[in-house]
Structures are given as structure tokens and as C-alpha cells.
């Protein structure tokens, strides 16, 4: 059956107008039209990834519901490729279908208060319930942080230390953690914008069956590379028109409000405009390289540039607004918001929010300092950082 025939058959057997959303999504998964590059039987057709666009467009045109990909982005972008690459057949069958349909939301338990840039130094520990018996349950204790969607998640991907007596990268194991376990406590983590996009997650004697281990004991770092590589792929972003980012908001304010203009601000604004357009053209060129089959290392510079520009432009905007810049985003509601947003909407909020939220851009998903290390070492071939912890058992490191 051709792809188009499969789409047609799905729509005939499950009329989007009358089929309940979840039922339709399950049927779509079972028809192999969820993610066509996945294997047959796991929501895919072993087809080239590019064909997904055909399916998505045809189903959207027919008025079919989607699986709200932004809400379940961590499951789709990070958990699923990891489960596919490292999970057992049983794990793939159990987890992938409800992950894709959105019936089960996933979150990621990686970062810790003591392990940010140095993720491999994490301290959350997992021990066998009955000493070292093969196959017995694991008991997990520790604290995770910066966890989006933990308050809605059914499952988490988790890295924990299973052997503190070996160097840090070697003693980690990768698990699937049940977020409904009584030992899991989720607390909102209020950030400097006032709202709480993220959570802290406290793990106290959380029980994980050995069947929910992903990959061999001690191979957690290698498994995590699959997850993190997919995170970087996801950060790429689509094509933007000129003035498509935060610069567009500021440019609009400049055009509409002549009373804000000064000579110094004019040159500063144009300097930022130039930098934003340079970044946009660089992203365009990178996409042309990818399309030509020559991916370049420029992608690693894109996040660096995005973070710096967002911060400079949003800081400029607050200055430009003057007295109005003294007031925060939702001052009309007489309090700092404590909302729990699941996406970041720069353009839809006030200048103060943009200024504050942009501070996270050079920290989240790899700090700008770590990115500079990566560019210097992997692109320019400069010497690697001196790693004093490389051959030392984790338990002997300064914590």
C-alpha cells in the first residue's frame, strides 16, 4: 500500500469529524502514520523521515486532530528516540504508543542542583533493593531540577548513579521512572520572571523495576548521548522572515512611537537590527547547507548568537520605553504572575518579561560558556579543558 493509500484508508475508517481524538490518534499510530521513520509496529513504516511532512499535511487538510506536539515535546524529541535506540522490545511496545498519542506525558530528570553543565557529576543514587541481586528492583534517592512538565508527566527519563566507586561517566544508569510513585514529589520552581515553567523533583526511595532500566547497568552516559543529541537537533528552529524575532517587536515600537526616539538609541537600534539580520541570514545559509547535504558546524554558533541577541535587544527595549520600562509585564493585575506556562511566548508578553526571560537563553540547553568550549575544541581544534576528575572515582571528587 502506498503512503497516500494508507492515509486514505485511515481517514475512511476513522472519520476525523466523528472519531474521538484519542481513538483517532491510536488508529493513526497503528496505521504506521505516527512517525513514518519508526519501525513497522511501533507507529512507523521504516520509511524516510522526509515523508512525514506528506502525512502531516494530508491529515491536517482533512481536519484530523494532532497530538499537540509542543505539549509532549520532551517525549517526542528526547524519550522516544532513546527508547527506540536502547529499549527492549517490551519497553518499546509498552511506552511508545501512549507517548505519541499524548495519553502519557513524559519529562526529563537529568539536571541536579549540583550537576548542571557537569551533568555526568550527578549525585542521585539508585541501588538494588536486595543488595546486588540481578533483576531486583532499584531504589532511587536524590533531587532533580529544571524539569518542565513534571507536574503533568506520567513517566520520566532518569539518569542515576549506580556505582560511585568508578569515575563519573562510568557509574551511571538510565531508567524510566514512574512519576506516580509515592516517593516522587514535584514542586514548582518559580523563576525570576515570577512564573514557574519548571519544577524541582524530589526522589525519596522511589521504586523502579529492573524492567524499566534502559540499556545496561553502567551505560547511562552512552544512552544519555542519544537523548542529548536529539535535544540539539530539536533546538535548530525554522526559517524566520526579516524582523521575525524580538527585533521585530522593538522595530514596531520605534515606528509607532516617535516620542521614544533619540539619536543614540537610533544607532543602537540599527546595530541590533544589523546583528539580528546577520544571525537570520546565517541560519538561512545553514539550512541551505543542510539541504545540499553538507551540514556545517555553524549550528553550534546559532544558539550562542540567539542568546546574546535576545538579551541585548530585550535590554535595549526596556531602556527605550523609559518610564514604562519601570512597570512589569502584567502590572495591571497587581501582582507578579505565578502562571505555569508550557511554552515561551516572547512576542506575546511585555518588555520586562522579555528582558527577564532572555536571561535564561544563555543558561538553558547548554550555557554559552560550554558552547564556546565546544566550538573552540570541536571546530577550531583548540586544546580540551583540563579534566581533573576524569580518572578519579566519583565518590572521591569534591562535591
Amino acid at each position: 500500500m502506498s503512503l497516500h493509500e494508507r492515509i486514505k484508508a485511515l481517514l475512511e475508517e476513522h472519520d476525523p469529524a466523528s472519531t474521538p481524538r484519542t481513538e483517532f490518534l491510536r488508529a493513526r499510530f497503528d496505521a504506521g502514520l505516527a512517525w513514518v521513520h519508526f519501525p513497522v509496529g511501533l507507529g512507523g513504516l521504516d520509511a524516510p523521515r522526509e515523508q512525514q511532512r506528506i502525512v502531516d499535511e494530508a491529515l491536517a487538510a482533512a481536519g484530523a486532530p494532532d497530538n499537540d506536539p509542543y505539549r509532549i515535546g520532551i517525549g517526542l524529541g528526547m524519550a522516544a528516540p532513546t527508547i527506540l535506540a536502547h529499549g527492549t522490545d517490551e519497553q518499546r511496545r509498552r511506552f511508545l504508543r501512549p507517548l505519541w498519542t499524548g495519553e502519557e506525558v513524559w519529562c526529563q530528570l537529568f539536571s541536579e542542583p549540583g550537576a548542571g553543565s557537569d551533568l555526568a557529576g550527578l549525585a542521585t543514587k539508585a541501588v538494588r533493593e536486595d543488595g546486588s541481586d540481578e533483576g531486583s528492583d532499584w531504589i532511587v534517592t536524590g533531587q532533580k531540577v529544571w524539569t518542565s512538565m513534571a507536574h503533568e508527566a506520567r513517566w520520566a527519563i532518569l539518569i542515576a548513579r549506580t556505582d560511585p566507586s568508578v569515575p563519573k561517566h562510568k557509574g551511571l544508569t538510565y531508567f524510566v521512572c514512574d512519576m506516580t510513585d509515592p516517593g516522587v514529589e514535584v514542586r514548582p520552581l518559580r523563576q525570576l520572571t515570577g512564573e514557574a515553567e519548571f519544577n524541582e523533583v524530589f526522589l525519596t526511595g522511589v521504586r523502579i523495576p529492573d524492567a524499566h532500566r534502559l540499556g545496561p547497568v553502567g551505560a547511562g552516559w552512552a544512552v544519555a548521548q542519544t537523548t542529548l543529541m536529539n535535544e540539539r537537533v530539536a533546538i535548530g528552529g525554522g526559517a524566520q522572515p526579516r524582523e521575525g524575532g524580538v527585533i521585530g517587536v522593538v522595530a514596531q515600537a520605534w515606528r509607532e512611537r516617535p516620542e521614544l526616539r533619540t539619536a543614540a538609541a537610533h544607532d543602537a537600534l540599527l546595530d541590533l537590527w544589523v546583528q539580528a539580520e546577520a544571525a537570520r541570514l546565517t541560519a538561512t545559509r545553514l539550512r541551505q547547507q543542510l539541504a545540499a547535504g553538507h551540514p556545517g558546524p555553524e549550528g553550534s554558533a546559532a544558539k550562542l548568537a540567539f542568546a546574546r541577541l535576545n538579551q541585548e535587544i530585550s535590554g535595549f527595549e526596556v531602556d527605550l520605553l523609559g518610564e514604562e520600562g519601570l512597570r512589569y509585564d502584567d502590572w495591571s493585575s497587581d501582582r507578579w504572575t505565578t502562571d505555569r506556562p508550557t511554552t515561551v511566548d516572547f512576542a506575546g508578553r511585555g518588555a520586562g518579561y522579555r528582558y527577564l526571560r532572555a536571561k535564561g537563553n544563555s543558561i538553558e540547553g547548554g550555557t554559552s560558556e560550554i558552547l564556546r568550549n565546544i566550538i573552540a575544541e570541536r571546530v577550531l581544534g583548540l586544546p580540551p579543558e583540563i579534566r581533573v576528575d576524569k580518572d578519579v572515582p566519583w565518590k572521591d571528587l569534591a562535591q
Partner: protein
Amino acid sequence: MSPVALLYSEVEDDLRASVRALLADRSPWNAVLARCETDQPYDTALWKSLAADLGCASLAIPEKFGGAGASWREAAVVAEEVGRAVAPVPFLTSSVMATAAVLALGEAAADAGELLDRLAAGRVTVVLAVPFSYAPDAAFPEAVRTDEAGRLSGAVRSVADSSVADLLLVPAVTEDGPALFVVEADAEGLKRDGVTSLDLTRPLADLAFAGVGGRQLASGDAAVAALSHALRVGAAVLASEQLGIAEACLELSVGYLKTRHQFGRLIGSYQGLKHRAADLWASVAQARAVARYAAACVADDDSDAPVAVALAQAYCSGVAVRAAEECVQFHGGIGFTWEHPAHLYLKRAKSASIALGTAARHRAALGQLVDLPAA
């Protein structure tokens, strides 16, 4: 936005390889340095090889005028290599700016076809008689005027490459308004006084016209349009030269960071240096996209060309200067010496940042173009 191609074509890669090989063979930096304080700062033999033998002078000239029928895109690749090598040749001034002016006049102007033919063959070096700092959006210059007999008088300072020009293309004001004249460089009444230039690899001269005879090539709007077109194409291609300067400075710097030891470590292992190198690399990658966009826009006569060119000059000028300044600092003491090439790049980058309008001037021009008006 139109999907302008920002990558290099295979033809361009081949062209680059030929130009790079020629410059590496004939004009290594120590040869440039040795030459720059002599009375032969230009390498005329190299210029002939580049312009005539490799055909670089003919790239943007249509085949019907004896050219290669390529475009400013290919010329921009040559400019990158000229910048990388800080080569003392009048490529930008003659093969880009003067050629663009004559091309803009096209067949409307008497003699244009014949002049293009000689330019394409690399038989003649032509330079626009404007200060090298002249910006594309500046008013038509009034420094040179004609008398009743139609002879040119006036003075033009800081004209790049004019000391090696065979012909000068002189914007002048006649009693009927703006016009463009062709003047023989050794014409009677014309004085060319070489000045000590900040950039040793692109010398300047002051021109003094005292009743000089010339042929009028164009007048009125055609002359004004030809001059601004020449300056705009020049500014676009200069961005590629600036990219080449920045690339060379980054490579020199990274090479040094990988070989120089202090405190028992390679200095490239210190974050204080490696992070700055990473930032510089990111800026150079951006300059490449911006310069390519400008070259493509002038090559295709795209309606976005004025924005693309102002953007390219506003961005690439700063990147080239920063790359050269960092190159000096990364090298420490040796980078401050005359015997190291860093100063050749620093001087060329700083001069290029003023050439054809400063970054600030181009930002102001952008403000007009993209509806971000001044206070």
C-alpha cells in the same frame, strides 16, 4: 524574502583555488611586507597574472564586451582571496568599482564598449577619482569642475590605487550638471601625489586637476546613477574582501594558539583566549552569510540590494577589524612587531572599515531603507 543562494558553487570553488594558488605562490605575506615600503608597493606582474591570465578582471563583464559573462558573485570570491592575502593589487578599485561604473553606462555611453573590452582583457587599470571613504548614498561630488573650455580643475584627496591607474574615471560638475570623464593618468595638468597611507597594501594618492583634458563618458542622471552603482557594487564586494581578511586573521590566531606555550600549557587551552576565538569564529561565519547575500543581491540586481549592501558594510567592517585586533592581541609581543603579518591585516581592515562609508554611516542608510527613522 526570496530564496537567495548563499552557498559557493563548484565553479566558485575552482576559481577560489586558482586565485589562492596564484597568490600563495607569488604574493606570500613576507613578499607583501618586503614590497610595501619600496617605491613599487604594487605588484604589477602579479596584477597582470590575476587580471589577464586568470581572467579575474573580466568576471562581471558580459561576453559581448569580451568578458567572462559571470557575475559579481564570482568577483566577490576573488575579493575574499585578495583580502586573505592582503594582496597589493587594484582589483577592487579597477575590476569592481570602475568596471561597475562603465557597465552601468552600458551602450548608452560612447566608448563604453571599447573600455570594457580593455578592462576585460586586463590591458588597462581604471580608478574612480573619489576619496576611498566615499559612501554609496553620498551626493554627487563637486570637487572637480569644468571650465568654459571643458577642462577639469579641482582636487580629490585619498584616492586608492590611483598611482597605478592608466585611466581615471572622474566625476565632475559641468555647466550642464554632473558628468563622468575619462582622463589619461599621465594627462597634462594632472598631478598625483602619493601620500603615506595607513594601509600599506592599498596606497592612496591626492589628485590635483589644473585644466586637464578628458573625454566625457556620460552626463546627468546616467552619470549620477553610474557612480552610485559603482560605489554600491564596490561596497558589496568590499564586504567579501573584509570576510577574507577576517578569515586569515582567525586562521593565523588559531594556529598560534595551538603552538605557543606559556606556564607549561598551550595558550589555546585557556578559556580567556579560546572563548574569544570561538566568538570570533561565530562572527566570521555570520560575516560569510552577510557578504554572500550582498554579492548575490548585486549580482542579480535584486530589489533588496541597497539593504543587503548597507547591512554587509555595517556588519563585515566590524568583524574584519575585530579579527585583526584580536590577531594582534592573541599573538602578544610578536603580534606587535613589524616583522609579523598581523599589522598588514590590521591596517587593511581598519582602512577598509572607513572605505566606501563607515559602519555607522551604513547603519544610518539602513534606517532610511527599512523605515526606522532617526530621532
